[in-house]
């Protein structure tokens, strides 16, 4: 589980952006928790609270729009704590102070909303890793064993499709099952594409009964 802390001005027009980012990441990167400075109510001075958040974060998203002083103070704190920072802005990049202009920005004023969220996914994945990347190889191994044992000739879904399927299942609240058998079925089915023949699904269950009763 990775923590992502979002630094942005506490102004109403940013609330929707925050909620959009939060609900999108819950779907696309389910192993990440997204928080903002006002998410927890604690009996501490706000600045200390925010410093704690940043300290606990694995990655920080900072919105530099409007050159808000609080944002830049917290951004400085994040840099000092050597946290990886994903910078976003709706201003022109030239508006950013020289000290941070050297970093790459995701400029959401010039991007379609989907393209922005896509870029954000990529940036965060480069820090926390793709949560499903490590599951593809074991899934493919099971898939090949199943095909060999049942003498069926099937083409596995591409890795990208596999990861999209995993992400969609996580997005609808499903998780990798606990038991070895259910887990194997879950993984292999993500490689069978959207519309497998019913016989293939029966053969898969038969095979699982043989190898992991």
């Amino acid at each position, binding site marked *: 589980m990775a923590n992502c802390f979002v630094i942005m001005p506490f102004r109403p027009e940013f609330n929707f952006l925050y909620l959009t980012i939060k609900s999108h990441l819950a779907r696309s990167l389910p192993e990440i928790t997204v928080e903002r400075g006002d998410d927890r109510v604690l009996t501490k001075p706000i600045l200390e609270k925010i410093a704690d958040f940043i300290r606990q974060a694995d990655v920080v998203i900072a919105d530099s729009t409007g050159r808000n002083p609080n944002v830049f103070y917290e951004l400085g704190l994040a840099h000092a704590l050597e946290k990886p920072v994903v910078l976003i802005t709706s201003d022109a990049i030239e508006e950013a102070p020289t000290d941070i202009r050297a970093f790459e920005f995701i400029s959401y004023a010039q991007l379609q909303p989907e393209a922005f969220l896509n870029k954000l996914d990529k940036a965060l994945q480069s820090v926390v890793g793709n949560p499903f990347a490590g599951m593809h190889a074991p899934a493919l191994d099971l898939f090949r064993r199943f095909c060999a044992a049942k003498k069926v000739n099937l083409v596995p879904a591409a890795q990208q499709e596999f990861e*999209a*399927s*995993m992400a*969609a*299942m996580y*997005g*609808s*609240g*499903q998780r990798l*099952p*606990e*038991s070895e058998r*259910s887990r194997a*079925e879950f993984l292999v*089915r*993500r490689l*069978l594409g*959207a*519309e*497998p*023949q*019913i*016989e293939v*699904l*029966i053969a898969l*269950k*038969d095979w699982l009964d043989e190898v992991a009763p």
Partner: protein
Amino acid sequence: MFREQPQAFIALPQGPAEPELRTVIRETLERHDVRPLFSDDTSLAALSNADLVIADITGANRNVMFEVGVALGMGKPLLLLSQERFTDLPFDLRAHQVAVYRPGDMESVRKFMELSLRDTLRERASLKA
């Protein structure tokens, strides 16, 4: 109130395969002591009490698709069947996977229902334990 007998909500489109499919599903469910609630003789409210939702999305019948959407939103375990492949299956259903059967091959449907139901009930029991 705790309900001992699990319930399944079933949505089927009208069509030549419907009567036979209905019989196969009813028999399989009853053999496993699961109460079948067919969408055409119950209300949508029954869906919220269901432990499992079975739907045949052949022809993308709008009532069936609507009920599948509700089931998906409620996070119900879904068992989807279809007689043909789609070129434009909604994204979230792609992940849930649709078992494609030939309309004349009720034996495969019976076997698939049987195994899927066994696994679903097994998982349900292990979650409760």
